[in-house]
């Protein structure tokens, strides 16, 4: 047992909190679900290994002395993963600054804040590494089994990447704190994190579309022009890729550099972390004055509800950024759409399912906010309005937002191909309606601030929302290509909805 107040003691405390938090997240706070969760995780790991096999089995034969193209593809994939880790780490660091939880208690205690925050930064690194290892493990395992043990070096690289991501995330967040102050850092850091996470994917897709008219990132990385322009195979830039392939020297260098980075970040930033956390605690929301307009507007109950939902969405930049970040992923199809005007309508078949999928995902998030994230549920429930009308008004508000976001895309599509636009419109409406309906069936009261963790309230709802969006996207894509297989995917989507309805608390109620 470690002595109270020591680094090891704090580490144990953090570990216990993290473990319980994770367990609560996985079981949605219901301890009886632990066994089911364990079984589901094992099954999920199995599925991931199958997916990994399908994706990377053909690369297992790559030896320890690869060509430039291989190094380029591995490095590109590693950078993409690392940016996602950096994005996750920035979110964690921001939360560590702003989530009060036990911070007041710890900062009020006579224990050195430096120790506490050293452990906190290390804990952030550990959580980033753990998540990355969990996601990378199926791929590494498949490659190691099929291609040899030298692939196991990738585990070391993943750990090193996680540590480096955490170190850089701390440095970036502290820099933001100093540059723009604690009031704005929370929002900006989260936007930066999201843009970092999505930016590289979108950039590669955009480059691939502009070069080859396809959304495949791999096609771009393997292109002759990119390979020719890349540094020689002996360049230091390829060391992480070489380490992944099992080069011991490169692995030692990458691991050493990342440990040094993390250690440096802990040493430099942990003494200031406490000051920044205190500054974040002192941030009061600025008094935001609304432009004064005329008097009360005449409104029915439904209109009042819709206006309220739209005003709340419009005025919450954090929620807006979280929700509309999904729209970032629409940029590549928008680019493809734009190019299609010049190169014929063949590429539009790719655009339709992307729009339908995005509409479903966006509607799911917005519907959660409107239905489960109601801030004054008792007020609305106490109003003389039938609950059915309340829900209808909220869903109308959601669908109104969807219409607003997707209308420009559909109009552009209509100019290129009215038939594709019609299919996309129907697909968007059905996909958004299905996702909203799932949120209605699984509604559970929560604070809007829990938006990021809404998936924990029901795993079934989360998967159902994703699967229904995918099924409707496939249907729309096949329909826009004129394939009768669309009927089969549409039937599958309907079956998903029926199954979800039966599994939902609303469907299970007598």
């Amino acid at each position: 047992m470690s002595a109270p107040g020591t680094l090891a003691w704090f580490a144990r405390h953090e570990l216990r909190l993290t473990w319980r938090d994770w367990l609560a997240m996985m079981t949605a706070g219901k301890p009886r679900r632990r066994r089911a969760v364990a079984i589901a995780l094992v099954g999920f790991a199995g599925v991931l290994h199958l997916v990994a096999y399908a994706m990377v089995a053909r690369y297992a034969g790559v030896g320890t002395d690869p060509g430039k193209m291989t190094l380029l593809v591995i490095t590109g994939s590693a950078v993409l993963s690392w940016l996602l880790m950096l994005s996750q780490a920035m979110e964690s660091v921001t939360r560590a600054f702003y989530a009060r939880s036990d911070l007041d208690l710890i900062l009020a205690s006579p224990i050195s804040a430096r120790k506490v925050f050293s452990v906190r930064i290390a804990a952030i690194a550990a959580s980033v590494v753990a998540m990355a290892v969990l996601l990378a493990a199926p791929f590494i395992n498949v490659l190691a089994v099929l291609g040899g043990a030298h692939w196991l070096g990738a585990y070391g690289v993943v750990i090193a990447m996680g540590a480096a991501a955490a170190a850089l995330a701390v440095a970036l967040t502290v820099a933001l704190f100093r540059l723009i102050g604690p009031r704005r850092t929370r929002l900006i850091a989260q936007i930066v994190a999201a843009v970092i996470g999505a930016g590289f994917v979108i950039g590669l897709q955009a480059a691939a579309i502009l070069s080859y008219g396809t959304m495949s990132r791999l096609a771009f990385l393997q292109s002759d022009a990119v390979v020719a322009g890349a540094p020689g195979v002996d360049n230091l830039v390829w060391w992480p890729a070489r380490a992944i392939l099992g080069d011991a020297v490169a692995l030692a260098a990458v691991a050493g550099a990342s440990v040094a980075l993390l250690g440096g970040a802990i040493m430099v930033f942990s003494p200031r972390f406490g000051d920044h956390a205190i500054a974040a605690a002192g941030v009061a929301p600025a008094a935001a004055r609304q432009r004064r307009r005329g008097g009360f507007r005449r409104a029915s109950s439904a209109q009042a509800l819709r206006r309220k939902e739209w005003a709340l969405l419009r005025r919450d930049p954090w929620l807006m950024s979280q929700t509309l970040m999904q729209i970032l992923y629409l940029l590549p199809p928008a680019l493809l759409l734009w190019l299609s005007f010049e190169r014929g309508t063949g590429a539009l078949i790719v655009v339709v399912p992307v729009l339908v999928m995005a509409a479903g995902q966006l509607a799911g998030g917005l519907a959660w906010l409107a239905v489960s994230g109601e801030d004054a549920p008792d007020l609305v429930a106490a109003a003389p309005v039938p609950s059915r009308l309340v829900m209808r008004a909220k869903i109308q508000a959601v669908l109104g937002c969807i219409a607003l976001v997707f209308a420009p895309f559909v109009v552009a599509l209509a100019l290129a191909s009215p038939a594709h636009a019609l299919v996309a419109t129907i697909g968007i409406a059905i996909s958004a309606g299905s996702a909203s309906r799932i949120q209605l069936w699984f509604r559970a009261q929560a604070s809007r601030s829990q938006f990021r963790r809404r998936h924990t309230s029901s795993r079934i709802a989360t998967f159902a929302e994703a699967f229904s969006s995918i099924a409707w996207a496939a249907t729309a894509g096949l329909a826009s290509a004129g394939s009768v297989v669309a009927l089969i995917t549409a039937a599958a989507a309907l079956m998903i909805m029926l199954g979800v309805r039966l599994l939902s608390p609303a469907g299970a109620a007598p």
Partner: protein
Amino acid sequence: MSGSSRIETIVTQHRPILALDIRGLTKCFDRPAVVGLDLEVRPGEFYTLLGPNGAGKTTTLRMVAGLLRPDAGSISIFGIDALADQVAAKQVVALLSDEPMIYDKLTPFEYLEFIAGLWGIDATVAESRARELIDWLGLGPHAHERCQGFSKGMRQKVALAGALVHDPRLIILDEPLTGLDAASARIVKDVLKDRVRGGSTIIMTTHILEVAERMADRIGIIAQGRLIAEGTLDELGRHAGARAPGQAGTSLEDTFLALLAAEAVAA
């Protein structure tokens, strides 16, 4: 028709309509929360419900406000069967709880506009009432600021304005003064007194016995989901003296504690 049943019909017909008439109200969660509760509140009355934590006060009020469905019993609000016609009953009721039900991203003015829309109040009438309430509650300088930075007292005042903007006949208040400073609490109390003078009926729970002592026309004491005593301050004092001789003092606090102690012994 027999003579006795005719008399009963005549009595029923001439019985004044109560603001709130609860009969045999029962609600169980993991354990019974409210057990066969009977309660009558007259129009224009300020009725205070007292009881220890977990006694069933909030559960009772939430059932009256239509936020919880009882397992058994009936609730009548100004003669409207609140379980059969929830919408009509809610039209005349307002609920104010200790956690203000407001939206951080709306201004007080917009919040009141939203509530007027929900209750279907004419926009012109609602606006005039809203401006009056905003001034009265001292919210004027903040009427067009978002509520996100408001103190607890200001948030409670906004919520109170929301509860009053549709001119309810029955106002349900669940611990409305919790966490308020003296000045805010005084304003809230003044507004409530004014509403009662204007003919509204108020039913309120509170742990601040001094407030109940000074404001209530009648007080009900609830314990373990049952109404154990009811009446004016004097009536309760006499009741406590009879049930717990030697324990009941002169203050409501003494009376309240004596009655709870007697109930615990009886249980």
